[in-house]
């Protein structure tokens, strides 16, 4: 890093702190990486950024056709219930998968230049949030056109999105750290994502579960995030302050653990491969 004027290997602060300071002093790098992510996505297809919405939109249509009769009286009601959860789940699954892949691919990059190793992951989370915003806006328009009651509850949407992003980043960093030593941890995670989605009330309403199972679902952080994200768009309500407190605590703890684990292992990355 060009900006490091004095470097003494004997006087390195703790890894987690060092990384934090490194990232904090490299705002221009984060911005450049976010711009890169957006540009690359834009270049990869003629649809451009709209591409982000294609996968959740397809899922939305297919799931609506298949499940609307099972879970809701009308297809349109079901689609409007389904869409917010699906978008948030898509954001979570995409962001974590991309970060884990990037850390694995970063080995080559980090061998030849010094950069904060969490920079790619943070930038991916930020561009993921941007995509999430881009997917949520048209949904809000559709909701408004469908005469769904919307109000100030919508203001909690960005808050929930950021909490989910913190959780995603922390989890991805932790798994990426394990994958440094055991590459199949990444595959294992991909495998677990599918059942995880099914134990999260994304495509079905939580209320259809037996009470005992419902209580178990509470231990799934994604169930909390999806619920909090969906409420303002479905019935113009917000999750309780207590629920937000729990969500913030889970997200912060996950991010902290992920950060500590990853920065502890990150020095080993250039040795692998």
């Amino acid at each position, binding site marked *: 890093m060009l900006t*490091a004027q004095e470097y003494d290997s004997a006087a390195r602060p703790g890894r987690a702190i060092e990384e934090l300071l490194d990232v904090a002093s490299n705002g221009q790098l984060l911005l450049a990486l976010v711009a890169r992510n957006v540009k690359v996505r834009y270049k990869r297809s003629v649809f451009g950024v709209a591409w982000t919405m294609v996968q959740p939109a397809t899922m939305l249509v297919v799931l609506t056709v298949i499940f609307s009769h099972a879970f809701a009286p009308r297809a349109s009601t079901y689609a409007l219930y389904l869409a917010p959860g699906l978008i948030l789940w898509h954001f979570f699954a995409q962001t974590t998968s991309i970060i884990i892949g990037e850390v694995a691919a970063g080995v080559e990059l980090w061998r030849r230049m010094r950069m904060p190793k969490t920079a790619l992951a943070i930038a991916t989370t930020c561009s993921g949030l941007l995509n999430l915003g881009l997917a949520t806006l048209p949904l809000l328009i559709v909701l408004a056109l469908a005469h769904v009651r919307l109000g100030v509850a919508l203001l909690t949407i960005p808050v929930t999105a950021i909490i989910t992003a913190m959780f995603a980043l922390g989890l991805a960093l932790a798994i990426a750290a394990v994958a440094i030593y055991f590459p199949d941890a990444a595959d294992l995670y991909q495998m677990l994502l599918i059942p995880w989605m099914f134990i999260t009330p994304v495509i079905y309403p939580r209320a259809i579960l037996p009470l005992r199972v419902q209580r178990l679902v509470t231990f799934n952080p994604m169930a909390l995030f999806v619920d909090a994200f969906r409420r303002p768009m479905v019935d113009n309500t917000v999750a309780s302050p207590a629920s937000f407190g729990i969500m913030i605590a889970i997200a912060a703890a996950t991010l902290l653990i992920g950060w500590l684990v990853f920065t502890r292992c990150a020095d080993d990355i250039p040795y692998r491969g």
Partner: protein
Amino acid sequence: MTSLIAVDAASDAVVRLDKVGVRYRMVIDKGLSLKELIVRRHRRRIAEYEALCGVDLEIRRGETIGIIGSNGAGKTTLLRLIARVLYPTSGRIRVRGTVAPLIDLFGVLHHELTGRENAYLTGAVLGLRRHEMRKRIESIADFAGIGDFFDAPLRTYSAGMMVRLAFATATSVDADILLIDEALAVGDAAFQRKSGARIDGFRRSGVTCVVVSHDVHRLAGMCDRVVWLDRGRVVDVGESGRIVQHYLATSAG
């Protein structure tokens, strides 16, 4: 002129290594996986490999120092230590000043992005702000000399063009210490002359250069001093002509 600066600042160490060791941990078994670890409770066999061992070295401000040695001697590891890509597993390294590393295809960041976009991104990695990069971008394009390809995606580049872009970008920043790994030997003859001239320019302006190359004659010509590494240890350090002669005599016999 060069020697004047070097002598003048002889006591001024910009890089200092004290008993530096780098130990790589390598996993021997193939197909290592979490699954195996859980299912078979099988312990990994890990081999340790000492890439560098007890290296003491002082690099002085403004000097050009070459590193020679056979493959696996630890030359690139030494550069990576100075670039802070690797950290020592023992000992201590201190670096004073900004470092611009030119190690392999430095500067290639994304194959879908154009040369221009990659240059901007590399600048960001090196700590340059966008407006600082904007001032340099035309001279980077000019020096790379790849014409319209500068605005084409990197996947369309030939290997030579990648090197040209990487070299032009990495050397566009004002660094106190320039690390060069084999970059001299790539590109066509014209570009080699051009890049050689640029490095000479850096040396004249007082930039400390650390050069790794297998072309020992070239090193003897351009370096003030040479470090000879063998299997991670320093065999000798000193005036370039003497070390290179000694090295050639030993490796021939």
